[in-house]
């Protein structure tokens, strides 16, 4: 049954960052951001990733997005578009909003034809109106964020990787963009969500991956993983406060 094949399958992956130095000057420096991570993601599910700062969450998303290849272990990705929800990708300052929206959509995985078809919806959602034909160098930060979000929303890939909350813009647009992200997450999209907000994870995710120092500690439903994680963090809090 093909419907039960995972869209992403990682087994025992490790990622090493090394900085080359000349011999006798500093040697080679290694840092393993991920050491041993394994889990599968199935079509349509929402998987949360939790873990302390510097536990390797962002590096993990980059591996899943195909931006960096693991230095050991194995990753299998289905032949579909898997990418990070990222805003203002490839924006060029002196180019009008319209062309930037097309360029950014293509970079996020659409063909030019698809990008042109979705352009009216992107412009409408961004609320930029006549400003769409002005170069984005004249935009305020909020306007640029709105355009960036609209593109990311309408170019959303089959498998969406989200790093923390991405609600942007002024108060009204924040509400609108947060609602749009929730809509994607609760729809049929496959989503992998990194967040420090355990309530969000509990509400939105079918399963949770807990990583610690680059290793998977647990992969299970939120009801099981989150209490363990909270317990572990409390223990750590006690032991560090004793120091």
């Amino acid at each position, binding site marked *: 049954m093909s419907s039960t094949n995972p869209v992403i399958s990682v087994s025992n992956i490790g990622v090493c960052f090394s900085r080359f130095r000349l011999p006798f000057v500093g040697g080679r420096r290694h840092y393993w951001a991920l050491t041993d991570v394994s889990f599968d993601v199935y079509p349509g599910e929402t998987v949360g990733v939790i873990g302390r700062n510097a536990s390797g969450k962002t590096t993990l998303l980059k591996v899943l*997005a195909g931006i960096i290849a693991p230095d050991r272990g194995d990753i299998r990705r289905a032949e579909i578009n898997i990418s990070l929800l*990222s805003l203002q990708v*490839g924006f*060029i*300052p002196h180019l009008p909003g319209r062309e930037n929206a*097309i360029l950014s959509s*293509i970079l996020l995985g659409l*063909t030019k034809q698809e990008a042109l078809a979705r352009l009216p919806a992107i412009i409408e959602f961004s609320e930029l109106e006549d400003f769409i034909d002005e170069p984005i160098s004249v935009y305020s930060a909020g306007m640029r964020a709105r355009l960036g979000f609209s593109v990311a929303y309408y170019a959303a890939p089959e498998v969406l990787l989200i790093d923390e909350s991405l609600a942007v813009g002024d108060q009204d647009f924040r509400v609108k963009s947060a609602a749009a992200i929730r809509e994607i997450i609760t729809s049929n999209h496959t989503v992998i969500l990194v967040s420090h907000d355990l309530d969000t994870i509990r509400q939105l995710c079918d399963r949770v991956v807990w990583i610690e120092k680059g290793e998977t500690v647990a992969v299970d439903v939120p009801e099981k993983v989150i209490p363990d994680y909270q317990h572990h963090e409390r223990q750590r809090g006690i032991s560090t406060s004793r120091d």
Partner: protein
Amino acid sequence: MKRRTLDIILYRTYAELKSEAQRTYIGVLWWILEPVVFMLIFYFIFGVLFQRGTEDFVPFLLIGLALWHWFQATVMQCSGAISANRGLIQQVYVPNYVFPTVVVLANGAKFVVVLVILFVFLYLWGITPTWHWLESFLVLVSALCLTVGIAYLFAAITPLLPDMKLLLQNGLRGLFFLSGIFFDLSRIPEPYAGWLRWNPVATVVDDLRNVLMREQTPAWDSLLAIGGGSLVLIFLSLTLMRHNESRYAKSTL
């Protein structure tokens, strides 16, 4: 190549040319003015001040400078192309050869403008077009392969070895003087002249002058060797870029 990759290359080339044109008041006119000013400076120094010119010194100089200016700009910009897009390659996967390819296309478009001006100038100067002018197309194809080969090579290695950029800057400065752009290589005594003939840039520059000014056929064997060797270099550099994609994304240099 996937449809989307082709779309990225073409749309991005268009976007960069447009954005460059919009950054200044006279925009597109700079594509003509910049090489013209560059050429005027050299003409003034070597043609007027030093009185080096034989009667055809001006077309001789302009052909060399046009080709050199294009070669140098393409190689230099390609060497920084992947680093310049570091933010982008950490957000979304794009085959990395896209970035130098956009540079090659954008510079190519500007070079075509310069070539048109050059041909018009040569005609106005009084050089009668001959059938040899058609051969300039093949000389330019060979020059294109050479430019792309060297540009891709530095595009592939500079992100990992940033020191290469400084090396390249100085290397290009040296190459400029060794390529016979503003003097005739045949004036150099042996054995040095023989050594300089191994410089492929000098060869294509000389061949372009042969077909445009001297009613001569280019040296086919050396052009073919340059074209073929460059294609191998292009292939190797593309392989190197593909192999190192993950390293470019991880690099913090």
